[in-house]
Each structure stands twice: as C-alpha cells, then as structure tokens.
C-alpha cells in the first residue's frame, strides 16, 4: 500500500470540503488555481479520490505473462534441430524458411519475443508513471493535511459547505457562525490554496503521462513478417536424410 492509499481515508473529509468550497464559493480572480483547473479539468478533491482508487499493483503484474511468453518463444526454438543434418535443394529451402520463421519468432528486439518484451517494458513505464504521480500527489496531500488552510476548512460547520448551488457564503450566513472561526473568504482562499497545491502535483503527472504516451507512439506496432525470397526452382526436389 503506497502513501496515497494510506492517506485516502483520513483525507476524504478535507478533500470533499475543498471541492464543496470551490463549487459553492469559487476562487478569487487571478488565483493560481484557475489555470490548473482549466488544464486538469477536474476538481482537486475528486481527482485525488479517483487517483487513490487506481490499482498500480495490477499494472505491474501485467508485464509478467508477457515476459514469460517471450521466454517461451525463445525456448520453443531450442527444441528445433534446424536442417543441419539434411542435404539437397529441398532441405536448403526448408532451412531458409525455418531461419526466417525462427528469426521472426525470437531473434532479437525486432522479433515477436522482442515485441512482447517491449510491450512489457511499456507497461512497466506506465506503472512507474502512475506510481510517481500517486507519490507526488500523496506528498502534496500530506502537506495539505497539516496546513493552516486545512484547519480553516475543518473548522467550518458542515452546513457552511452546503452541497452544490447553495453557495458557500449563503451556507455560511445561514449557519450564523461568525466569530472566532474564519469567514467565507478565508475558507474560499484555503480551498483554493489546497486545491492549487494538489492540482500542481497532478499537472506534473499529466505532463509526464503525455510525454510517456508520445515516447512510445509507434514503437509497439505489429511486426511485419518478411519471408525469405523465393529460391530458384531446385534441380533436386527431394530431401536427402543422412544415412
């Protein structure tokens, strides 16, 4: 279990408060959260909760059967004797065809086994990206959990963050809870500050994810089979086996 998975449950209430505050109160004009909201297209709380629900372990495990299969392709070739013991034009034709088939199956990076290994490396890369993104968001979340902004939001009475369209200020005023607690503007600023901190970490993950996608584009395409050129018609059409 990584840090984000451990923090998800204790952070749930704060994350929901951040989103409700942003939904109902918005954020000040010119606040750094605005370009991040536009870039990410998601509220910080829902993004973090959904990210915490991903399962990076199953992603890492996905590479294992591909590598096993790549090894099986190589091992399969070891069972074949080739055409070393045979003579004649037909034996040579078989040998050439077998070499082409064997090379396509398991000879180096440009083979089917190489393609499987490359695909396994791809999913390793994606798993690494997801783990790094989760870690970066988790570190940001850990900082937020102990922040004064978090304390400001937690101090709000539940009714002050009425769901949806009621509006933070309206909900705040309805509870009649001024006094020692922070006012609506400080709550809005707190939510925007926490949201920007979380979204910034997520935006870095987004940048790296896009770069990862571009880096692998076209590298895992289907490998075309290149048969051996058709040989000249053999004078001898029989295989000659060693006596």
């Amino acid at each position, binding site marked *: 279990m990584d840090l984000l998975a451990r923090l998800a449950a204790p952070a749930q209430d704060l994350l929901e408060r951040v989103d409700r505050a942003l939904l109902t109160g918005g954020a000040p004009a010119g606040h750094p959260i605005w370009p991040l909201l536009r870039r990410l297209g998601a509220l910080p709380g829902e993004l973090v909760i959904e990210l915490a629900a991903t399962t990076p372990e199953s992603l890492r495990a996905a590479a294992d059967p591909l590598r096993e299969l790549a090894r099986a392709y190589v091992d399969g070739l070891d069972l074949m*004797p080739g055409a070393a013991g045979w003579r004649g034009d037909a034996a040579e034709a078989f040998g050439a065809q077998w070499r082409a088939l064997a090379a396509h*199956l398991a000879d180096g990076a440009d083979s089917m086994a190489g393609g499987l290994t490359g695909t396994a490396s791809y999913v390793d890369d994606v798993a690494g990206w997801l783990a790094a993104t989760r870690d970066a968001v988790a570190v940001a979340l850990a900082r937020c959990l102990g922040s004064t902004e978090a304390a400001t939001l937690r101090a709000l009475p539940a009714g002050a963050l009425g769901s949806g369209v009621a509006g933070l200020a309206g909900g705040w005023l309805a509870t009649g809870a001024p006094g020692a607690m922070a006012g609506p503007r400080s709550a809005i600023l707190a939510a925007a500050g926490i949201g920007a901190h979380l979204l910034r970490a997520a935006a870095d993950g*987004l940048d790296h994810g896009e770069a990862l996608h571009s880096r692998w584009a076209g590298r895992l395409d289907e490998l075309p089979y290149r048969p051996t050129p058709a040989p000249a018609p053999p004078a001898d059409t029989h295989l000659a086996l060693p006596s």
Partner: protein
Amino acid sequence: MELEEVAGRVDRLAADVTGAAARLAHADPGSRAFAGDGPGALFAVGRDLHDQWSAALAAREREAAAHGARLAELGDRLRWAADGYRAAEDAAHRRHRPEVT
C-alpha cells in the same frame, strides 16, 4: 532426426504460438489500472495509455495468430514431404523385392 519428428515439433511450436494469442487476450488489467477511469485530463491520459497498451496487446495477438498459422503450414508441408519420401521408399522396396512364384 526423422522428418516426421521434426514435423511434430513444428506442429507443437505452432500450437504453442497460436495458444499464446488466446493467453494475451486475458493479459489486460483494465482501464482503471491505468488511471483511465476518472474525471479530467489526467485520467484522459490514463485512457490514452490504456488504449496504447490495448493496441500493443492486439498487435502481439495478431502476430502470434499469424505466425502460429505459418508454423502449422510448415508442419503440414514437412509431413507431406515425409509421406512422399515414405511412399517413394516403399515403392523402391517393392521394386527390389524378389517375386514369389
């Protein structure tokens, strides 16, 4: 090694490679594992990465299915050659066998 034994080994390899295509079809942990199931651009990238993975897996499946068929065809041709070789040997034996009166 006898020609028929080689044909048998090629057949088994063909079956293994063809079977790999079916195994690959079950190797996908799903879009959620790629962070492809959520709101906004981050999860859209997760979906793109899952699409890239799905396309790669499908390519590996097609490669395995096509190459399994090529190997099976080679096995058939070897067996056909072995049958022809055996028939030729039998005919030669019959020609040289002393006639029984």
